[in-house]
């Protein structure tokens, strides 16, 4: 089984803890950062991930901006937007920033597995 590495980008501590655990329980090593700028910085430092779980509303740099920046940097991995926003217009803007997938919060094991199946992950 390939060792998948993931990055959790979320400003909410409760969500950080849950998403970290959800990934770990599925055998996925993961790092947690608390806003879009940290997500960009961690990539600038040379780290690479197979999956990014990107929240939308965050201080300093939000998920839309961070996704745009990462794509502009040439980051091609799976980026899944994870957010509470449900309006089509908001979803659209987030998707257009460069997402591969979109899930509504709260994140569950089932939603995470459906994201992972898109990267050829075998459970």
């Amino acid at each position, binding site marked *: 089984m390939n060792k998948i590495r993931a990055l959790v980008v979320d*400003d*909410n*501590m*409760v*969500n950080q*803890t*849950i998403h970290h*655990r*959800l990934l770990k*329980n599925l055998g996925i090593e993961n790092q947690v950062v608390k806003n879009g700028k940290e997500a960009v910085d961690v990539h600038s430092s040379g780290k690479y991930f197979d999956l990014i779980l990107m929240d939308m*509303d965050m201080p300093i740099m939000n998920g839309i901006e961070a996704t745009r920046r990462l794509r502009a940097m040439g980051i091609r991995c799976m980026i899944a937007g994870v957010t*509470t926003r449900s309006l089509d217009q908001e979803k659209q803007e987030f998707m257009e920033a460069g997402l591969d997938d979109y899930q509504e*919060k*709260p*994140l*569950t*094991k089932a939603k995470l597995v459906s994201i992972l199946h898109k990267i050829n992950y075998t459970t």
Partner: protein
Amino acid sequence: MDTVTQLQRQLVDYTNSLFLEGFLNEQFNQLQQLQDESNPDFVVEVVSLFFQDSERLLNELAKILEQKNIDFKKVDAHVHQLKGSSSSIGAQRVQRVCIAFRNSCEEKNIEGCQKCLQHVKYEYTHVKNKLETLFKLEQQVLAAGGTIPMY
């Protein structure tokens, strides 16, 4: 019925009541499923984070709503956070009040916001008490030598 079975029965009944009465929803089950031998205190840890975070947010909200000029953007940002965390742990009633709260923010309705703050404080305190009781019951089962039943 021996003590352990009795306590376990009490725990299961109490937990079920929290779901039936709408305090918790299936998202709480997700948390329970993440708890295992390598992470035996996961639910308590996450819920404790929720308590800390919520109390901070509620204090901030009270401060902001006391101001002469209310920064509704700030109020909305805090309520958004509270809605997020409550939804993530399955604290359904708190989450629902947050939705109404955000509507009041959008309308810049001061009275509406103040009412919502009282309401969300009430629901938060209520679910906090319920969860603390739940954790106490779990401790009792463990102390009596039993294991926590899988829900």
